């Protein structure tokens, strides 16, 4: 019975590509596609479908339990009303409350156990700020609404590789300063728990990259490995987590190396994102670890420059939907955690 819980996909910024990639994801569905509903404005989805020439029956529903029944014939939509007409590529702060409402309703559906997982389309923080949004970003908002006391952790997952950047959107100089033993330990714990529960890997192995070239070469190329990274690895191991490192990042990502671990903790953005995107540019999925529900999102932004043209690539959203379904099913099957 649990396996029949559907997914929801949030609207995201309606001026971005979220609507059209969701429509494309529905047209490209096959027998393996998990049923999903949009939290979106049905009229605007119909308009975008017409604009890009997609024949998608948009099917408003009132109950999320209708998703599986409706999905084969049309794209189920749990209606969220927009305040202003949408012009692709032109964000409008008047629609910010609807963007947030879609996220809030997804959280409520997740927390009441009505959905297996949520997939969030990209938002534009600047537009939400203009409408009074007070959180640093999407993930922080979800964490706050979920009552989380510790920071959630971002994983990027593709079929070939899972990476967890310990520092993310910081200038490299600031990332070097922000890296702490505690932050690596936190990421390691959350990653290990998620690999076990959501990815159903009983004994996950986590590789930990060094910060400096050659992982510092015994201190010759920087001391962060000795002072910051190695103590974190030791602590994770003491807790029974199979963490290894610090390892030189440049030899961690070829196919043979990838066979030896389930995820890599990376010390900064490019160290994680270069291998992920260079191996498989389109199929990367953003997974938020540590939330009381499963949340994935496509690994791209609103792409205003191509919104409304039908040129957007839905591959990452399709991968995000598939992964959300898998992770959601694993979590439902897993023994409850405290």
């Amino acid at each position, binding site marked *: 019975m649990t396996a029949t819980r559907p997914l929801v996909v949030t609207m995201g910024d309606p001026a971005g590509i979220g609507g059209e990639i969701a429509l494309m994801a529905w047209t490209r569905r096959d027998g393996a596609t998990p049923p999903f509903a949009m939290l979106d404005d049905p009229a605007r989805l119909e308009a975008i479908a017409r604009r890009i020439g997609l024949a998608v029956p948009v099917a408003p529903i009132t109950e999320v339990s209708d998703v599986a029944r409706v999905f084969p014939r049309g794209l189920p939509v749990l209606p969220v009303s927009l305040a202003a007409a949408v012009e692709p590529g032109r964000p409008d702060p008047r629609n910010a409350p609807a963007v947030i409402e879609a996220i809030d309703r997804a959280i409520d559906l997740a927390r009441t156990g009505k959905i297996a997982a949520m997939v969030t389309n990209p938002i534009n923080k600047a537009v939400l700020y203009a409408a009074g949004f007070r959180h640093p970003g999407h993930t922080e908002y979800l964490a706050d609404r979920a009552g989380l006391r510790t920071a959630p952790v971002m994983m990027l997952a593709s079929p070939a590789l899972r990476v967890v950047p310990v520092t993310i959107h910081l200038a490299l100089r600031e990332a*070097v300063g922000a890296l702490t033993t505690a932050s690596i330990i936190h990421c390691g714990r959350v990653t290990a728990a998620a690999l076990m529960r959501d990815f159903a890997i009983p004994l996950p192995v986590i590789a930990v990259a060094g910060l400096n*070239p050659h992982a510092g070469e015994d201190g010759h190329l920087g001391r962060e490995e000795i002072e910051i990274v190695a103590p974190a690895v030791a602590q994770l191991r003491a807790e029974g987590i199979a963490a290894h490192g610090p390892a030189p990042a440049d030899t961690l990502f070829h196919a043979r190396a990838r066979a030896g671990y389930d995820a890599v903790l990376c010390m900064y953005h490019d160290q994680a994102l*270069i291998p992920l995107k260079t191996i498989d540019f389109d199929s990367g999925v953003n997974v938020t670890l540590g939330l009381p529900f499963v949340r994935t999102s496509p690994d791209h932004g609103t792409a205003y420059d191509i919104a409304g043209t039908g040129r957007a690539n839905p591959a990452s959203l399709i991968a995000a939907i598939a992964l959300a379904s898998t992770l959601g099913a694993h979590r439902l099957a897993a023994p409850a955690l405290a």
Partner: protein
Amino acid sequence: MPPVIAITPGDPAGIGPEIALKAMIDPRVRGALRPILVADAALARWWIAHLALPLEVRPCPSVAAAAFAPGTVDVIEAAPFPLAGFAPATLRAENGRAILDWAGRAVELAQAGAIAAIVAAPQTQKAIEIAGIAFDGYPGFIALRTGTAPEDVFLMLANEERRIAHVTLHVGLRRALALIDRPRILRCLAATDDALRRLGIARPRIAVSGVNPHAGEGGLFGREEIETVVPAIAAAKAAGIGADGPFGADIMFLKPGYDGFVVMIHDQGHIPAKLTGFDRTAAFTIGTPVFFASVAHGSAYDIAGRGIADPSALIATLLAMSGVSGVV
């Protein structure tokens, strides 16, 4: 006339001499260039006998004396090499010393204009270390031997997928961030442009990475792009170099149409270069008057002397340096 390119065998006890000799009798190599071995004639004879190769050694007092005849290996010698006690896969200080004697002799020949380029077979770091010689890689060595300022010399990794030059290399990340400035980026771009032209690309197009995530995203994640990288690219363009960027390093390497990439720090370039394994990668020392490359794989003591070493990385590097191949 095809260019004369010197091959140095690297560690005499590793697979270097074997792949050097195999490369010298490869028909593609002989068609594209005139190879000359800078090593020890007795050592070359030892390896030829050991591997039963159909080759004769011809010691040459100078490059002008080389015949480049089929079935012969023209050898230019350096300091005498002690063959007594030599065995494959055995570390010796004498071997470590010889690695750099031969490389140094080849540099002299290049500086004198007698050869067009040098390709080094793999060295063994430990052998150089026990010889008591400070060595942190060929870029520093070539800089020293050519009187080039160390900050003018850069490393470019090249394989079948892409060529990537590094503005900073073997320094800690904090130190790298302090070293990245406009003149240094511009020097690296000029060195990359020059190397790509020597590889036979008439009008190289070069993609340049940022320092920060998403190349700083307009100053949101760091100002190095605005203050340093963008002006360096503008100066390079003004000097006739086809440089574009800065691009986020994560989305840069699949961009089509670029002959080379320039990155700011070691891992930004070494991660993509090693994604598909490392064996077929060449390491070019660029920015010096001498055109120099080494193969990036090791001296493979586990198979040294067994006749099964694969010379393809060395051959690909030689062909690229002769300008006949756009790839490596």
